[in-house]
C-alpha cells in the first residue's frame, strides 16, 4: 500500500518543477559553459580577443550566479505565486537535497581518481578514455533526469535524459574532445532552456492568476 504522506511530499516537490524555471536556470549555466568552450576553440589564447572575451565570460557567469536567485524569486512572485500559490520547503528537505548533491559529487570524484589510478598502473591510453568524457557527462545528466522522471512522474525529464545520453555518446564518437564537449554542453543547455521555456509558457497559458487574496 502506498504511503499517502510520501505521495503528498512528492506532490509538494513536483510543485517546484511546475513553472520550468529551475530547468531554465540549469540550462543557462550549462550553455554558458558550452559557450566558453566554443570561444576557446574559435579564439587562440594568444589572440588580442582572448582576454576581453574571457573577462566578458567571467563577468557574465558572476552576474548570473549572483542575480539568479533574485531573478527567479521575482519571476516566481510575478507568475507562479499568483497562479498556484506560494510554498517554501522544510529545512530537512533542503538539507537532504544538499546532502544528495554532495554524495553525488564525492562519488564522481572518487570514481575518477580510482579510474585514473587503475588506468595509470595498467598503462592505458588515457587520451582514448578522456575522449569519452561527453558520453559520461551524458550518462550522468541522463541518470539524474530519469531519476526525476521516475520520482516526480514528469515525462519531459525522460526526454531530456534520453537526449543527453544520445548526444553525449554521438559527439564522443564523432568529434575531437574539446569540440565534442562544447557541442554537448551547448546542446544540453539549449534543450533544458527549451524544455523550461515551453513548460513556463504552457503553465502561464493554462493556469490563470488569482486576482484575490493568496
Amino acid at each position, binding site marked *: 500500500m502506498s504511503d499517502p504522506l510520501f505521495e*503528498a511530499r512528492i506532490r509538494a516537490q513536483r510543485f517546484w518543477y511546475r513553472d520550468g524555471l529551475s530547468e531554465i536556470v540549469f540550462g543557462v549555466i550549462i550553455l554558458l559553459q558550452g559557450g566558453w568552450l566554443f570561444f576557446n576553440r574559435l579564439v587562440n589564447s594568444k589572440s588580442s580577443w582572448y582576454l576581453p572575451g574571457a573577462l566578458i565570460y567571467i563577468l557574465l557567469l558572476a552576474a548570473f550566479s549572483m542575480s539568479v536567485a533574485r531573478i527567479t524569486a521575482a519571476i516566481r512572485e510575478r507568475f507562479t505565486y499568483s497562479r498556484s500559490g506560494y510554498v517554501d520547503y522544510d529545512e530537512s528537505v533542503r538539507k537532504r537535497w544538499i546532502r544528495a548533491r554532495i554524495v553525488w559529487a564525492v562519488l564522481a570524484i572518487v570514481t575518477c581518481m580510482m579510474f585514473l589510478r587503475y588506468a595509470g598502473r595498467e598503462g592505458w591510453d588515457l587520451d582514448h578514455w578522456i575522449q569519452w568524457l561527453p558520453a559520461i557527462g551524458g550518462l550522468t545528466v541522463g541518470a539524474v533526469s530519469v531519476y526525476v522522471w521516475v520520482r516526480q512522474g514528469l515525462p519531459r525529464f525522460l526526454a531530456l535524459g534520453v537526449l543527453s545520453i544520445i548526444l553525449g555518446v554521438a559527439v564522443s564518437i564523432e568529434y575531437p574532445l574539446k569540440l565534442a564537449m562544447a557541442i554537448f554542453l551547448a546542446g544540453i543547455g539549449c534543450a533544458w532552456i527549451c524544455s523550461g521555456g515551453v513548460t513556463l509558457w504552457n503553465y502561464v497559458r493554462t493556469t490563470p492568476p488569482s486576482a484575490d487574496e493568496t
Partner: protein
Amino acid sequence: MNSRLRQIADLDRLIHEPARLMIAATLYLVKEADFLYLQNQTDLTKGNLSSHLAKLEEAGYVEIEKTYRGKIPMTVCSLTKKGRVSFKAYEAALRGALF
C-alpha cells in the same frame, strides 16, 4: 475490545476531521505555504479553508501571517511546533491502530 483498536478513540479530534487533516498533512511537509497553495492542494472552498485554518490557529497548531505581495494580500500559514508534534502523534497513533 482490541487495545490497539481502542487507540482510535484517543485520536486528536481536531486533526482527525478530514479537511483539517489535509491542511495539517500539507503543512507538515513544508516550511510555510500561502492560502492559494493550500486551496490547490486540498480542493477546499475559500470559506471552508478559512474556517478550518481558524480552528487550527485557535488550537495553536497553525500560525497565520498576513502580508502583501504587491497590492494583493497574502496569507502565509505554517504548522507550529505544537502542531507538528500533534500531527506526528496522530499519524503514529493511527498507524499503530490500523497497521
